[in-house]
């Protein structure tokens, strides 16, 4: 009897159900898409923030003071400590290896540049680095990294050098002082690697012919330098397989008071939690472990800006999501209330025929529940599609639907439809059938 009453109500007057169902579908679609985006946005934005470049800087621990102005190290090549290139693959073996998006080694060598074999030499900085180098990882795979990942704002006119070719890219300011140097021209780079004075060895002179393939503009000191593949800078400096600085770009979680604590003073459980969270402090600790003898520093400007904005946008988005849920609840509740009020005559007839208040409430709530399940399911599908296109338009890649949200959305839909009809049902229980049936 109960089931028939509910079924009849759907079959006899589908128009009334359409309004509530539509409100449920739209409300739950918005709730689904905002929840999906809110869950995903932290990761997505953190990835976007990597366009700011590296957030960690690795330097040798036992180093002399770099004479560094505007990003270029003016120390002579025989001074200070170096790091070994062969260990770099180990960066992709740390606990948070997938969060290491890229790293680029740098080696600065002072040298002279000549446009032809016998033209006037110009003193300039040679910056050796990688553009897109394949690094072999100890686990047998390889990883492509370099400036293309860590310094995306460096723009080149022409093309970048190949990491294994005798090619170079000239800084725009340097190019301006050397008229006639354009893409395709060959220049000669000479450096004197200083001899070991203790053993009385004379310094050797290294000269290499490089083909200019592009003009780079960095808006930084590199504009006045010549960028060459790392291997060539190593040859010029007489330090094969070595470099001075490593920039690492890592995906991190915003720092909080916990991540700022000294890991040595943590309890074992706290330490495990810290180690297994992608905080910048734990990632730099893990890098230090695989690259012993290094000093891993957080580039504060980048890391702090990122952390602050990520946590603020995160909070903001959760508030907006709450507002979306509130608005969805409001829409469903308002339409549910409307349908109950609309069916006063029906309630009057049922009461006149002896139906108890609880039976009437049961019938209405069962209807609402059915509607909530159907509307919630459709709303979830629509919302997932909405989140996909929203993710695609904001971040370039669509947000993948989260099935875990499906039961959550169904639950929300049921609760909202329930609560929305409870208040008018309470009113309905006070209805006196007689005036309603008279049409008053």
């Amino acid at each position: 009897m109960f089931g028939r009453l509910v079924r009849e109500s759907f079959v006899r007057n589908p128009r009334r159900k359409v309004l509530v169902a539509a409100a449920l579908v739209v409300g739950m679609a918005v709730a689904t898409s905002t929840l999906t985006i809110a869950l995903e946005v932290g990761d997505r934005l953190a990835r976007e923030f990597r366009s700011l470049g590296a957030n960690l800087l690795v330097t040798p621990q036992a180093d002399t003071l770099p004479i560094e102005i505007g990003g270029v190290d003016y120390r002579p090549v025989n001074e200070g400590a170096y790091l070994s290139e062969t260990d770099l693959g180990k960066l992709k073996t740390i606990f948070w290896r997938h969060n290491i998006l890229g790293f680029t080694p740098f080696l600065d060598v002072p040298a002279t540049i000549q446009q032809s074999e016998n033209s006037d030499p110009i003193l300039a900085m040679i910056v050796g680095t990688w553009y897109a180098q394949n690094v072999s990882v100890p686990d047998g795979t390889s990883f492509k990294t370099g400036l293309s990942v860590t310094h995306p704002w460096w723009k080149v006119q022409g093309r970048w050098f190949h990491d294994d070719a005798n090619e170079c890219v000239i800084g725009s300011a340097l190019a301006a002082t050397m008229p006639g140097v354009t893409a395709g021209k060959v220049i000669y780079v000479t450096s004197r690697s200083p001899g070991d004075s203790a053993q009385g060895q004379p310094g050797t002179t290294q000269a290499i012919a490089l083909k200019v393939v592009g003009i780079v503009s960095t808006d930084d000191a590199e504009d006045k330098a010549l960028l060459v593949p790392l291997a060539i800078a190593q040859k010029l400096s007489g330090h094969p397989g070595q470099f001075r600085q490593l920039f690492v770009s890592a995906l991190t979680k915003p720092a909080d008071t916990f991540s700022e604590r000294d890991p040595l003073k943590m309890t074992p459980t706290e330490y495990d939690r810290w180690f297994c969270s992608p905080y910048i402090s734990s990632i730099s600790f893990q890098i230090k472990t695989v690259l012993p003898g290094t000093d891993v520093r957080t580039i504060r400007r980048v890391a702090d800006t990122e952390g602050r904005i990520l946590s603020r946008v995160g909070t903001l988005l959760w508030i907006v999501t709450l507002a979306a849920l509130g608005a969805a609840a409001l829409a469903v509740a308002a339409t549910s209330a409307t349908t109950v009020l609309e069916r006063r005559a029906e309630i009057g007839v049922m009461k006149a025929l002896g139906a108890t208040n609880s039976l009437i409430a049961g019938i209405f709530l069962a209807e609402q529940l059915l509607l909530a399940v159907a509307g919630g399911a459709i709303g979830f599908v629509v919302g997932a599609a909405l989140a996909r296109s929203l993710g695609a338009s904001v971040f370039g890649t669509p947000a993948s639907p989260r099935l875990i949200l499906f039961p959550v959305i169904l639950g929300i839909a049921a609760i909202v439809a329930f609560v929305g009809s409870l208040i008018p049902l309470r009113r309905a229980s006070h209805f006196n059938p007689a005036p309603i049936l008279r049409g008053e």
Partner: protein
Amino acid sequence: MFWRLLWKLLRGSSGRLVVAILALVSGAMVISALLNLEFDIERKLTQEFRMLGANLVISPGHDAQINGAAPAALMNESEAFAAIQSLKDPAVVAAAPFLYIVERAGDTPVVVAGTKLEELPELEPAWRIEGQWTPSHENQIPCIVGRNVVRQLHLALGSTLLLSYLGKTTQATLVGIVDAGGAEDNQVFMGLAEVQRLAGLPGQIGLAQLSVRGTAKNISEFAARLAAALPSYEVRPIRQVTEAEGDLLNRIRLLIGSMVVLILALTALCVLATMAALAMERRQDVGLMKALGGSIARIVTLFMAEVGVLGAAGGFVGAILGIELSRWMGQRVFGTAISLRWEIFPLTIALMVAVALAGALPLRLLGKVKPAVIFRGE
């Protein structure tokens, strides 16, 4: 007569009216809160992005000769800063001159940057400092030292740093240790005048760094104006900062914006549905009025006035509540209250009236209502 009817109508259907008013008020509240947030978010976020430090550099220009470690070209300090001050732009958060020289601390060469120490905290808010930015004693030369220099030279807060440059020496007191995670960790920061004296370059600076608030477009406009005021120097935005900032800002705005639009649409739809239901309930009244000889135009006007009043009242109350809500949100998210935009007030009310009127549109169909059919209850 018109007003009396309107009053009676408003009082008549109290149950339905409560639902409608609730929908209108909460709808208006959500809409005005989110609009307020959306209008202010760009300003708030550009402020946050100033953590990135300087985003504009004035340098002597490209024709300067490149000569190894010693940048030969210099600029005139007063000329550069007079130009910055003449623009009187409130967007300039901080501006500091820099003169770099390589001095010797004992046997160790170290890069010394002459600057305005008091501008540094504003220019580089992300730097961690141990000690103070500015000195407490007048009679000593203060310096802020990068943490690598401190380690290398075995210094501590309060110790004296003896620096020499081409036979001239200076004694500075270490007042702060800076951790920047960059080249600054290897540098010593001192008052500009002292470095100029040591270098024998009075009134000269190597470059100036500025932190300017605003979107990428604002900043490049400001850079263009500054460049016009300083034709002999080169003014350029630091691309790493401005480009990434502009891109991120756009994405965050787009994200929040699209969610706000979704919620606005949902809220409007909810109010629309409630108002439509309210209107359809009036079929009996319409039948009666029509039977009594009321013209359709008059009847529709009456109902439109009713929902219009409802919309305006709901919008008014909702907008006030919404502005309170956005204040709370601003406090919660950014730590500072969101500045109020008064144009949101009329905008919300107008939006609510429009939505309410749109919800009453089905009433136009009542022109076709035949009183007899309605009275029979069909």
